[in-house]
């Protein structure tokens, strides 16, 4: 399957994401700059992590208003898979493609460590390689990953099975409501998550727990 990685000023995890996608699918992704209004014909669009626009105003707020996001919205409506990691997740909630908001970590500190994630929904295009309830390792690195949604939105997100990952075993690093680490849209083709699965895909990383996510999204068998 073909993939694309979106690039915006201030994103800095794009190279890690390109490496992960290339290693797992065997094909290098195309890169798409923020001013582009059309996205090539791909099966997966990834918005990587970083600090787009220096996190000015709110994390992801300015990136979410760039022309490329209109093109991504159109592709998402057609059913193309979209994955946002870290700042990519913040951009997806700011653009309205995903419900809720990501706020300053409850500790007020930047957290850079490893957490445990429980796969809450293994029935999505992004998590088929995992078993429901499986606990995987994943690195996190963020200052604003505190997921929030009002009571009504939260009820809908929980009720529809849109919570895909929860921080497990007391490792919630940011105060996220209900330990939410990743959510999918109602249609199931847009996933946002704060943890960085692209940084745990091979022995050199000390593990490959993140590989299943890309193997699922790219329709390749998990290695």
């Amino acid at each position, binding site marked *: 399957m073909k993939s694309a990685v979106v690039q915006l000023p201030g994103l800095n995890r794009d190279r890690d994401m390109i490496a992960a996608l290339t290693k797992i699918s065997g094909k290098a992704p195309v890169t798409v700059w923020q001013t582009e209004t059309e996205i090539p014909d791909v099966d997966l669009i990834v918005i990587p992590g970083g600090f787009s626009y220096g996190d000015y105003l*709110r994390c992801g*707020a300015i990136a979410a208003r760039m022309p490329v996001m209109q093109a991504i919205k159109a592709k998402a409506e057609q059913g193309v898979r979209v994955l946002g990691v870290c700042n990519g997740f913040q951009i997806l909630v700011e653009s309205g493609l995903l419900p809720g908001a990501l*706020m300053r970590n409850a500790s007020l500190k930047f957290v850079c460590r490893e957490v445990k994630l429980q796969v809450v929904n293994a029935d999505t295009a992004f998590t088929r390689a995992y078993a429901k309830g499986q606990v995987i390792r994943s690195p996190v690195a963020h200052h604003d990953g505190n997921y929030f949604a009002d009571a009504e939105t939260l009820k809908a997100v929980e009720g529809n099975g849109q919570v895909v990952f929860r921080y497990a075993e007391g490792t919630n690093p940011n105060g996220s409501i209900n330990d939410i680490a990743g959510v999918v849209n109602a249609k199931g083709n847009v996933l946002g998550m704060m943890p960085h699965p692209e940084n745990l895909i091979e022995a050199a990383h000390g593990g490959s727990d993140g590989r299943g996510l890309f193997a699922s999204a790219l329709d390749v068998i998990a290695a």
Partner: protein
Amino acid sequence: MIKARVTVTLKNGVLDPQGKAIEGALGALGFDGIGHVRQGKVFDLELQTADKAKAEADLKAMCEKLLANTVIENYSISLA
């Protein structure tokens, strides 16, 4: 030209860890009787128009589209 001030604050019920930290710091400085502290943002804007109604409509659109995240924030607009 019209000068405007937009104030963006967190909605009630949205946790504000920064406000909480400020609340604690004020207490540590010896200020007694501090209730809740909530942190917000202020934007001062200049609009090249004399039409107040248009300015207000434009500012409302700016708040809805960019200045506030209405999932978690409220905004108020005042014209100088």
